[in-house]
């Protein structure tokens, strides 16, 4: 098989050499400019100069230091001198966070650009001006500088941990065995070694890739795989205890995974985590968090708990069940229990919500998205998917990473209790597959004109080449060159195809990393994969070093990066405009009799998001709206509470009413105020008629 394929390659290549003169005309070179990564120093100086040059809009806040003692910085943006502007800490705020994982460079870049965009756009662009006048935006582009810094070391290695030394192999020594760039190619890739105990074999369809041998199919393993390096501590394992090792994005307190070393010994054990948590706790006016990470929680709503989203059936304790006329042995949804409470009259006019029931029953920590919050998330998901598709940025949803246990986004929703979204900005796209009807066959090729052939497009031709088993370095681009210049015709290509041996069985499953190889080959000119090259290892003997380069999934070519960042910034800016607000729409004072008035206050939320998420109410971190009637000495309250709590108001102008009956003099003044930390405060006066 192999030798036949080799001879085909030689024929094809020979043909090219003969007709073309240069084998590797790199069509893809211009698009391949790598996406530029700012250094740590550049990021810090960018933020600081943005602040110093725009003092009325921007301020740098240091919120802490990483384990490696690097500054953790948040940029505060608010137009302090806008007309009737409230101080930044009293406005609804949005927090934009990026790169808790350390290597999500796109996120850091996107959030830096967002800061620049907002500042530059103030006074010129309607949207930016409105946001900075009425809201505060906090932007934190780099919350894991230790991991980020490892990228500019002597070699590239995907390490998402901070720099706390951890004895990962529990042998009494700390950080004693890290990777080495043995072949000095600047990357930590993999080593494969032939070993009698080996469990891996090369993938038959794509020999660059390795997969586990399946003994049930009669396969016998050949290779063992290691990361590139040597056994520094002589314990038989390679690179099992590298420098540093706590993943900040697994160190948050919701659904924390205990006893896993990379998550940390306990939640919030790391200074980076603590700094962010302290910042959040001290800024209770943060109403929306927009995150950039390798997670895409808009596309993937899967949660870390076992339950599906919105599943919330509970059994009532006997005592309460009988009070409500429900069965103690039956499971009810929270919604059904709320209904039963309302109809039983036991609530006594107080508004009962599902979160109150959950809290009262001591249901423990929530692990699934609250059913009442789902519609908002699904609406945003729909908009996002449509937008991605239109922009040509979509990728298979199964590759969208959901929240992980102990992640920041999980904490943001379940404990901090606000709407929180995370996007990865870009993911390796799915290579386009030709449909069955359109499969290119030699016959079809023979009847095609060169123009028709070229119009099929690179992707289809690449897929076709792959399907016929052409060597990987043979790409559509080169073929097109030859066809355009007349050196090759589709018919000639068809003849060559017919001479080739049949390809291996198509029924075998494709290796799950094939799409990455395709991406490397087509978009990066093969630079995304280091071909397996022999190397003499000090203890393992003859090995081969190769594999995907670190950062392959994180660094698109510059052009694509621009497009993806642009799309996501616009999407996030739009979400920022939709933050909930509180307005006293109207105060109606009706005289019931001389000196007796009924006061009706109508409150509304002109934003799009509800004033709080259901989970935020359940977690008691999103507070109700306090509506207070301020009476002077000569005014008396007859009915109603001096301070009335409204649990929440939905968006898009829903109205809730609060009623009081008071005794007061005609013509006297009444003050009504409504307040909630994430909405700010509004005050209105009325003169009694």
């Amino acid at each position: 098989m192999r030798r036949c394929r080799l001879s085909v390659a030689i024929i094809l290549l020979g043909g090219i050499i003969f007709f073309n003169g240069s084998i590797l005309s790199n069509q893809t070179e211009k698009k391949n400019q790598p996406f530029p990564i700012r250094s740590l120093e550049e990021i810090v100086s960018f933020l600081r100069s943005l602040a110093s040059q725009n003092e009325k809009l921007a301020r740098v806040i240091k919120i802490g230091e990483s384990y490696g003692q690097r500054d953790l910085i948040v940029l505060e943006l608010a137009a302090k001198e806008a007309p009737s502007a409230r101080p930044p800490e009293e406005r609804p705020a949005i927090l934009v966070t990026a790169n808790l994982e350390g290597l999500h460079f796109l996120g850091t870049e996107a959030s830096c650009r967002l800061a620049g965009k907002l500042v530059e756009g103030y006074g010129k662009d309607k949207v930016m001006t409105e946001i900075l006048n009425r809201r505060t935006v906090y932007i934190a582009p780099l919350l894991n500088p230790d991991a980020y810094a490892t990228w500019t070391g002597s070699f590239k290695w995907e390490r998402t941990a901070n720099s706390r030394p951890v004895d990962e192999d529990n042998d009494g020594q700390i950080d004693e065995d890290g990777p080495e760039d043995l072949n000095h190619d600047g990357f930590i890739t993999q080593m494969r070694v032939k070993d009698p105990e080996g469990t891996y074999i090369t993938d038959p369809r794509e020999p660059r890739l390795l997969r586990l041998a399946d003994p049930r199919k009669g396969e016998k393993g050949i290779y063992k795989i290691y990361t590139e390096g040597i056994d520094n501590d002589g314990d038989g394992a390679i690179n099992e205890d590298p420098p540093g090792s706590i993943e900040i994005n697994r160190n948050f307190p919701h659904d924390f995974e205990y006893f896993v070393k990379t998550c940390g010994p306990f939640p919030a054990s790391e200074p980076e985590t603590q700094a962010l948590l302290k910042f959040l706790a001290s800024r209770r006016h943060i109403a929306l968090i927009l995150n950039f990470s390798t997670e895409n929680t808009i596309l993937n709503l899967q949660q870390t708990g076992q339950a599906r989203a919105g599943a919330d059936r509970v059994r009532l304790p006997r005592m309460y069940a009988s009070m409500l006329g429900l069965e103690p042995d039956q499971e009810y949804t929270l919604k059904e229990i709320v209904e039963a409470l309302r109809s039983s009259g036991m609530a006594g006019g107080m508004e009962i919500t599902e979160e109150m029931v959950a809290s009262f029953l001591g249901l423990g920590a929530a692990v699934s998205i609250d059913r009442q919050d789902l519609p908002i998330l699904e609406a945003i998901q729909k908009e996002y998917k449509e937008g991605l598709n239109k922009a040509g940025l979509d990728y298979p949803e199964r590759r969208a990473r959901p929240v992980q246990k102990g992640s920041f986004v999980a904490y943001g929703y379940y404990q901090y209790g606000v709407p929180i979204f995370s996007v990865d900005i870009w993911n390796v796209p799915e290579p386009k597959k030709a449909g069955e009807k359109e499969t290119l066959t030699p016959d079809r090729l023979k009847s095609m004109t060169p123009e028709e052939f070229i119009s099929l497009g690179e992707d289809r031709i690449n897929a076709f080449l792959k399907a016929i088993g052409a060597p990987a370095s043979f790409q559509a681009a080169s073929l097109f060159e030859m066809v355009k210049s007349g050196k090759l015709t589709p018919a000639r290509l068809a003849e060559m195809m017919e001479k080739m041996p049949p390809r291996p069985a198509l029924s075998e499953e494709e290796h799950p990393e094939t799409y990455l190889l395709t991406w490397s080959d087509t978009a990066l000119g093969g630079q995304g994969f280091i071909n397996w090259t022999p190397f003499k290892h000090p203890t393992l003997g003859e090995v081969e070093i190769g594999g995907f380069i670190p950062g392959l999934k994180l660094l698109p070519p510059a052009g694509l990066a621009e497009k993806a960042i642009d799309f996501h910034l616009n999407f996030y800016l739009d979400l920022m405009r939709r933050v909930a607000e509180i307005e006293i729409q109207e105060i109606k004072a009706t005289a019931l009799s001389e000196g007796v008035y009924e006061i009706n206050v109508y409150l509304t939320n002109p934003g799009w998001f509800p004033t709080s998420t259901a989970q935020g109410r359940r977690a008691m971190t999103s507070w109700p709206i306090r509506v207070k009637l301020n009476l002077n000495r000569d005014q008396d309250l007859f009915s109603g509470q001096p301070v009335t709590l409204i649990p929440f108001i939905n968006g898009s102008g829903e109205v809730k009413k609060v009623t009081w009956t008071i005794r007061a003099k005609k013509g006297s003044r009444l003050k009504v105020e409504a307040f909630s930390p994430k909405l700010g405060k509004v005050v209105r006066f009325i003169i009694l008629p």
Partner: protein
Amino acid sequence: MAKITQSNFIKSNFIRASLLLFFSSFLALSAAQTEIRLSFDHFYDHAELTQALRNLEKAYPQFMTLKSIGRSFQGRDIWGVILNNPKTGPAENKPGYYIDGNIHGNEIQGTEVALYAIWWLLTNYGRNELATRLLDEKVFYIVPTVNPDSRDVYIHQVSDPNSPRSGLMPYDEDRDGLADEDGPDDLDGDGSITMMRKKVPLGTGTHRLHPDDSRILVRVKPGEKGDYLLLGEEGIDNDGDGQINEDGPGGYDLNRNFGFNWQPEYVQRGAGDFPFCFPETAALRDFILAHPNIAGAQSFHNYGGMILRGPGAKNMGEYLPADRQVYDFVGRNGEKILPGYRYIVVYKDMYTVYGGTIDFIYNVLGAFTFSNELDQDPLEAQRPRPTREEESPDIRAMLGQVGRLEEMEYHDLVLLGEHFTPWKPYKHPLFGEIEIGGIKKFGRRVPPTFKLAETCHRNAAFCFYHADQLPRLEISKAEIKKISSSLYQLDLSVVNSRVTPSMSAVAIQNKLHRPDEVRLEGKKVKVIAAGYLIDEFRGLTRPLKIIKNRLLIENGVPGFGRINLRLLIEAEGRIEVVYDSLKGGLKRKSLALD
């Protein structure tokens, strides 16, 4: 005045000097013998505690180190005491025992117990076999008061038996944008927050007076008519929001703020915004984590007379069986030292606690941790208290502030009225004519001062017992047999004569800390092969991996157990065998190979 001649001058100075010398040597002698006399018949505020600790350090510098492990919210030093005899080894090479007290501001007597323990060990070194052995073989890490701010408020300012439990960082409990704006008020000026009651028309009340003692309010049964309302704690509506005393000083619980199985506020009240968000708990965290040799621990609370172990909550499962056996052994013997105290499990026999100290120390450090609830209700002490399942609602109802006759008798005849304010009329701005009275701050939960010393001694004795049960390792056998010119067989046995294993089951299972290791040191020593000797008659071993003359003993030495190892080594001259256990201590044995 005598004329000062030269010879006079020299003579008088000589006399002065020798007198000085005599007295100073006398003083030096007495200083070594001077006991620091501390009395345990009163409660120490932070200033007095500080002075006592400083005096102890000055008198026993060879054993005691006093350091500030952090500052409380209001800036008081949180004192950490380390007791060790450096002549028998550095602290980090010995099993450590940890004690803290007074994490809840009103639960003050734990501080006196801790102080007593420090004082007793130091003053009895060289005179008492246990004190000497404990200071020689173990190291003590003691934080007498974790919450000095609230401690001082409790002692010197207005408070009640249950508060201030929290720290004093302002906390917006009623979520109105203001923090600590409506706490209790000492309306009658008696220094305590007592209760308010109001007589109302018959039939409109929820309580009635006890027929035999008008100081006691009894809740009416269905159908009964009441003529009293129990209005709650002394106070007024300071912020005009319709509620009284809903947002007092602080409002969180430091003993729910620890990082193991921490749950947010809506699941665990008082937990704070995130683990260790308060300066006091952060200081404890840093102190505890800095001493991973801590193998046993105690955290004092009040009250009820209990020796508690975790788990604090059901969701993480029960402790491992091997560890439970160690807890049972120590806990049950503890009941003999503390008659009336019950050895019970927090989540099962008490209530659920997420994020507590004892779960943290056990699950992060792998150290066996108890929490004693000091002092029982004096009336309960006289008769055994039913378990939670056995308690009827009636009995439970009686345990509230609405007291019992016997309690009143106790206050009158034993406490001599010191801790009870008789009900007296008061004109309340909202409620009108009411009465204020009830049990005062030292009248419950803390022992009366005449019983304090016993609480201190017995609980310190429990700590000493537990500390004495920490791993006690000895290289009991190190036999050399020559095989060939430079090859030797070395048989080693390490014995643990106490119940606590050198590695707890939770530490082994979850790899919480480095395993024990055997090291061979010497100029030309090389370990060729090594294994656990599993059959000494047949000479069978189970292999151990060798990493550069180190053997990892991954399961440590069991409680009341031993490990036997057999090694083949190449060596010349002298070798040193080292058994290095993080929590079991470091032991050495020197061997000559000839």
